[in-house]
């Protein structure tokens, strides 16, 4: 079991543009064969994104983490956390990497969907970063990072 970062830069991450006014995934992580990943709540997330055409996303935008199991319908993402864009808009990427301003960026999971605040995703499960807001994002500018643990199966 090793500590790694769940990041948009991983080789098994796919970054796409969202649909405005629809909750849609912008990054999906397809758990690689032979591995399992575990994410736990309580860590600060690091996120940087521009709206398509430049500038910050509207403050009405919310983001979340969601998962999909192999036989779920294609659009059936189970959203497990929900956070606001605001603290990420006001802090630069560099400032977000400082421990001093982490409080507003800590991720909480919905207790009824993730009972112990820990979620393990097996091979063939998918995890996604979903966005719901009035703007489309610029997929090329998206950067997201959250601590995770990787286990071998």
């Amino acid at each position: 079991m090793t500590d790694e970062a769940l990041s948009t830069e991983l080789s098994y991450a796919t970054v796409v543009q969202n649909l405005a006014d629809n909750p849609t995934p912008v990054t999906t992580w397809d758990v690689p064969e032979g591995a399992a990943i575990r994410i736990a709540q309580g860590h600060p997330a690091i996120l940087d994104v521009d709206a398509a055409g430049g500038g910050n996303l509207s403050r009405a935008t919310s983001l979340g983490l969601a998962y999909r199991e192999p036989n779920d319908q294609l659009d059936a993402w189970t959203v497990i956390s929900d956070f606001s864009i605001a603290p990420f808009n006001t802090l630069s990427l560099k400032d977000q990497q400082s421990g001093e301003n982490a409080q507003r960026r800590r991720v909480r999971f919905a207790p009824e969907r993730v009972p112990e605040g820990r979620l393990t995703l097996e091979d063939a499960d998918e995890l996604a970063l979903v966005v719901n807001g009035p703007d489309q994002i610029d997929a090329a500018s998206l950067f997201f990072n959250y601590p995770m643990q990787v286990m071998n199966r």
Partner: protein
Amino acid sequence: MNANQRPEKQVYLGPEAFTFSEYTSGSEGIVGTAKVPSTQVWRVPVGMPLVVALTGKQTATVSSGATESIDLTPEAPLVDFMDDVTAGEYTTDASLVGYYDSTGDGNPDTLITDSTGTQYTGTFGTSEDFITSAELQETDAGGDVDVAFYAVMRHGLTKIQKRNSGKGNVSQELQADDSITWAFSNPDAPDTDRQIKWDARNDGLRGVIPPKFNLDLVFYDASFATAVEEANAMNVEVSIPVSQRPVRPDEDAADLRRKVSQTMVAP
């Protein structure tokens, strides 16, 4: 003194300790390798701060006699522990270093400053902690000039791994982070999260790197490549502390290698 009693000492692996190699984007690849001397054993000093900033290259052309603003793709992070071009520090150690072709041989190899034939006007476009563009003025008016920029990588993932030598190459990852986290780390600020330290899981046998093993820097990005192997990429910043001690007379280097290899089941 008997070699048996010689203590471990801290050594820092800088860019000169690494052999850098070419990288093509789209798959994971080794971009730098340091080899453990055949008479020494390395151990990872858990908790010591690490510095790794790899660089990528981008090229552009400035028209003869013109003043042009050149957009950087990818943008160059303003790195705490390196010189800052936007503050007039036009050195080879800056997080963004520009070279121009002063001789017309098609090879941009002369450092750009504020007084060279092709020079910085001092105007830089910035967006938060990134340099987005640099304005250059071509004063020789002898034709269009090729320029090359070496900027610290903001994209991709950078890992440190140990790897045994010879047949049956086995590797084990020791530390992994996004390139941007490496770039924005601050080795001088232990009270913030921005210091990247040798991970505590590298304690014990996992952190032992026997004689002739390799310590690799591994990079991955889907669309941008590093250019660490180029002679002008002098702003590659690497400082990896390891504890080094001689192989003891009662130790067999081959045995030690075998013992460590057997524990190296990834990750």
